[in-house]
């Protein structure tokens, strides 16, 4: 079998106000099982777009390329099928769901995924127990489960809520899109621990970030730099430190 | 042939003499429409809150051919005194519905013809549906037809309609105005309706805003204290055009400002804002229908009412979003401040929506001055009357700030200040 996640020649565009806008211009990336990879890159380079395309957002049209996930054609799957297959995206800005109770939402999602994976569904009592424990580990206020999904959550609370969902859904591949931005040091550690707890030979992650700080906790395997819709450079963990100190400019001009 | 029986047609009978002499196909069609439906009673949904009883019982004649020039000049001077920057603007002055060339100052940038010469009715008005517009069509005496050529920024124009009535005079006038802005043209049109005594003023204004053109249209109703003024505006707005309207209702016995704005091509924008500041037994009605007939258009409406004495304020605002009008962005807010136990507000904000990908909202509030705020001001040493005045001004301030033309905004504020001094204790 090839890699765990194999992205080749991925091109994607969006129709914004009647204008075609090419965003991804040939992304090649492979992530073996058990590894944590990082994407860095200036604002607007297409990092979030890549994560949306991987999760199956229909606004983006894939015009070329392929994505194999555990040997399956990821691009042919519906978003919920991708979730069931183990893909999880922690959104850069999670949407609010007014009137939808967080606990109920989580349970519905967890059970939908469990069902699809052939696991037994959790009853309300068992689920709540699990959710409360997870929330506690993430030092979330217990009433977050009772509130509506993301409604009135602070930026940090939203990010924690994403990590809570990740913990409960037990993905085999997690994409974290700037989950660390705007978090204080403690919250940062909580997020990192959330990922680290999932780490296993069968779990991989793709972490989008601008900061070395998160990587201190996560210990990544590979760093990729994205610019203008493609990966222009890849390297070991030292690359992140270099970028943290020197910025992107140098790498961009070298690549150009 | 055009007989109208007084018993069946209600207030329409007041016009029966004038309607009998009507000639010309368009005018006769309008008379036929009037005979079918009459002038609206409160059983007609669009007139649910406003009765035409104020028109009185006596037949309304055509305005006299001559007028008191001194009196007209005094009204003009009074308006200019309230806001002196307006004196430098080109202006068109009408007295009792007829153009008064001796008081007007023309501008090169605006082509003007007069209805009395062209007899052009335009196409936007709907006399079949709107009886007062049918009445105007049947009886229109004169009006200004203003045109700005493509790409020209014509600056500002003052259109002053003066009504000169006595305490119980009985005449009506029905001006027929039109504004055409060609593609990319710009104009700020300041319509001041001022006067004294009793009369019935029933103007119709037919507006066409071309591609990328922008019209700012400010209307001040400062009519005579016993006057009835019922104006109807039709505005068709083309792609990327802007129709930005503001109406201020201050003086007159019965006032209604009715706007039908149609967003006809994408990225057009319409603002229909207004303020009513009424006291005594005044009735003021702001009615609008904003039709989104194309995708990606924006409409905004903010109307605030301050009502004192036995005054009654009416707001009827309908936003209609047709099926084609996806991505419509519509917002409407109507608020009323009741200053007296006998004041009344009737509001009907309405959304009629046939497209799914839209964001439309409206809101309405009614209340009195906030006791806590009043107390706060007084505890800082502001006397009660002044504190009330401050809060009223604060309530209206944001809305007045929506008037882009500085002179027009200043004129509105000046007229409100006059009213505030009189009406505060009423």
């Amino acid at each position, binding site marked *: 079998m090839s890699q765990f996640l194999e992205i080749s020649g991925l091109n994607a565009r969006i129709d914004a106000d009647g204008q075609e806008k090419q965003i991804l211009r040939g992304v090649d990336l492979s992530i073996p099982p058990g590894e944590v990879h990082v994407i860095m890159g200036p604002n607007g380079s297409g990092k979030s777009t890549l994560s949306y395309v991987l999760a*199956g957002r229909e606004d983006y049209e894939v015009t070329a390329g392929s994505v194999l996930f555990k040997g399956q054609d990821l691009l042919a799957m519906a978003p919920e099928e991708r979730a069931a297959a183990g893909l999880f995206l922690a959104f850069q800005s999670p*949407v609010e769901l007014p*009137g939808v109770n967080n606990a109920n939402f989580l349970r519905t999602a967890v059970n*939908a995924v469990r069902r699809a994976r052939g696991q037994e569904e959790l009853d309300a009592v068992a689920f709540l127990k699990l959710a409360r424990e997870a929330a506690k580990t993430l030092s979330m206020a217990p009433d977050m489960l009772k509130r509506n999904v993301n409604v009135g959550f602070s930026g940090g609370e939203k990010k924690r809520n994403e990590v809570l969902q990740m913990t409960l859904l037990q993905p085999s591949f997690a994409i974290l899109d700037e989950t660390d931005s705007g978090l204080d040091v403690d919250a940062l550690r909580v997020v990192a621990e959330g990922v680290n707890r999932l780490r296993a030979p069968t779990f991989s992650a793709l972490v989008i970030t601008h900061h070395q700080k998160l990587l201190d906790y996560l210990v990544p395997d590979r760093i990729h730099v994205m610019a203008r819709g493609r990966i222009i450079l890849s390297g070991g963990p030292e690359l992140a430190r270099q970028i943290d100190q020197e910025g992107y400019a140098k790498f961009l001009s070298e690549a150009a | 042939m055009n007989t109208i029986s007084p018993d069946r047609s209600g207030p329409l009978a007041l016009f029966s003499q004038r309607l009998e002499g009507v000639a010309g196909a368009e005018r006769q069609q309008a008379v036929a429409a009037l005979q079918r439906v009459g002038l609206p009673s409160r059983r007609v949904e669009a007139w649910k809150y406003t009765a035409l009883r104020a028109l009185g019982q006596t037949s309304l004649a055509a305005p006299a051919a001559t007028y008191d020039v001194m009196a007209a000049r005094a009204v003009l001077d009074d308006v200019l005194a309230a806001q002196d920057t307006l004196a430098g603007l080109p202006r068109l002055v009408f007295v009792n519905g007829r153009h008064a060339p001796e008081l007007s100052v023309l501008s090169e940038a605006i082509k003007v013809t007069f209805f009395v010469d062209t007899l052009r009715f335009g196409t936007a008005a709907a006399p079949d549906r709107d009886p007062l517009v049918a009445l105007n069509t049947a009886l229109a005496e004169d009006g200004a037809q203003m045109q700005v050529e493509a790409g020209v920024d014509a600056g500002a124009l003052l259109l002053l309609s003066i009504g000169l009535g006595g305490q119980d005079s009985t005449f009506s006038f029905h001006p027929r105005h039109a504004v055409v802005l060609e593609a990319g043209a710009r104009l700020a049109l300041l319509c001041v309706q001022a006067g004294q005594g009793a009369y019935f003023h029933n103007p119709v204004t037919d507006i066409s805003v071309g591609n990328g053109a922008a019209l700012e249209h400010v209307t001040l109703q400062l009519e005579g204290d016993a006057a009835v003024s019922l104006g109807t505006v039709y505005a068709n707005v083309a792609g990327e055009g802007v129709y930005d309207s503001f109406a201020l209702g201050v003086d007159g016995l019965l006032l209604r400002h009715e706007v039908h704005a149609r967003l006809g091509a994408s990225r057009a924008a319409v603002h229909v804002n207004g303020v009513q500041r009424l006291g005594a037994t005044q009735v003021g009605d702001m009615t609008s229908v904003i039709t989104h007939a194309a995708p990606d258009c924006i409409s905004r409406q903010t109307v605030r009412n301050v009502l004192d004495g036995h005054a009654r304020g009416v707001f009827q605002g309908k936003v209609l979003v047709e099926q084609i009008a996806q991505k419509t962005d519509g917002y409407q807010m109507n608020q009323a401040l*009741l200053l007296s*136990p006998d004041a009344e507000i009737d509001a009907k904000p309405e959304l009629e*929506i046939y497209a799914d*990908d839209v964001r439309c909202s409206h*809101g309405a509030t009614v209340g009195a001055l906030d006791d806590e705020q009043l107390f706060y001001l007084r505890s800082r040493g502001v006397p009660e009357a002044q504190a009330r005045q401050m809060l009223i001004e604060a309530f209206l301030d944001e809305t007045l700030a929506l008037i882009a033309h500085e002179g027009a905004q200043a004129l509105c504020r000046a007229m409100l200040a006059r009213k505030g001094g009189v009406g505060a204790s009423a």
Partner: protein
Amino acid sequence: MPVATETKEAVEKLGQSTYKWGFETDIEMDLAPKGLNEDIIRLISSRKEEPGWMLEWRLAAFRTWQSMEDPKWAKVSYPPIDYQDIHYYAAPRSKAGPKSLDEVDPALLKTYEKLGIPLHEQALLAGVEPGEGERLPVAVDAVFDSVSVATTFRKTLAEAGVIFCPISEAIREHPDLVRRYLGSVVPAGDNFYSALNSAVFTDGSFVYVPKGVRCPMELSTYFRINARNTGQFERTLIVVEEGASVSYLEGCTAPMRDENQLHAAVVELVAMDDASIKYSTVQNWYPGDEEGRGGIYNFVTKRGACRGARSKISWTQVETGSAITWKYPSCILQGEGSVGEFYSVAVTNNCQQADTGTKMIHLGRNTRSTIIAKTISAGRSDSTYRGLVRVQPKASGARNFTQCDSLLIGDKCGAHTVPYIECRNMAARVEHEATTSKISEDQLFYCRQRGLSEEDAVGLIVNGFCRDVLKELPMEFAVEAQKLLQISLEGSVG
């Protein structure tokens, strides 16, 4: 393809198959000839063994009705109704008013069983699971076409002093109460349909809760139209005395038929000092098929009078059925400090039309009202919220808050909001907010990314949208209503 496009297409595909209550009960019927005249009214009155005053009242209403025209102001359209082509009385052929459940035709009991409405008290009691001791049984009045076929738990209720019986029985057994209150909130001539109802009403429920009594269980009535070409004209009267309270539920279903059937009910509520009435409806009359054939015309007048100080009337409705709904449950807030509430969810799909809302008339000082209306339109349906908030000069300190939200699914439907706000008191505060939007792609995608199917995601978001209303329903109803919402929009996705 964007999710919303799929959603629209799927909505368009949605067929009648989702109406699960559309079966017909084969039972021998006692049917009055078609048509409406004084003789028919006399016949109804005599079948019900009514006293003379009742007949006179009906006849007066009939004469008023003859001079009236049906209202045209609502945003609904339908061909003229031939009022002479309807049966005004249809009853299962058995002795009128069975005294106990054993006398009820087993076919009828089956019908209600199929509808999930237990009429067997024993079975119901046995069904109360141990450990959930707090859950109270529900007393049920079942109305089948023109008559009440069974009322359960009457004994338990009688011990508490609560009268809960078919209105036809109340007219015979409690004439003083009925005479005092019938038509006192909705006068016969109030509108075209109330006049019609007053002339020909056949059955419905009567509830009387005496002073200081909190009704020991939820009361409910299930209405079922079965016979062809019949109209259903039920009449409900609920009187709650000082310091007393009751919670009343109403459910409605009908068979699937090609023809339209008329349902013109009148509900009157009276609340005295410190009394409270909670009236909940889950209306699921047959809505017609996807082409708009058949379905119930639901023209209903519901009004509550808060006569006493600090009294409270709360209307909660979940409207998913009917071809046409014309319905404005209202509150007349007369007593000082009285409270009116209206919580509504209206779902229309296919060719349904709904024009529904409320009137809050503030007469007394410090009266308060809350209106929360949620409208969901799909298919080619049209849905209108129409509401009136009126504050009269004496209602100092009155407060109203109104929130109307509409959700559109697809671009062939319409959603409209028509509030009327009339305020004649400066010491009142009225606030109104309305929004219209569609289900956001962002929300759908977020749910799907977490593994929910599109259909479940829509269901979840719609239920979230309606939450402020659904939480007002009694537990049992809330669950039913949630399912109903899902079913009504079933197939609206993938």
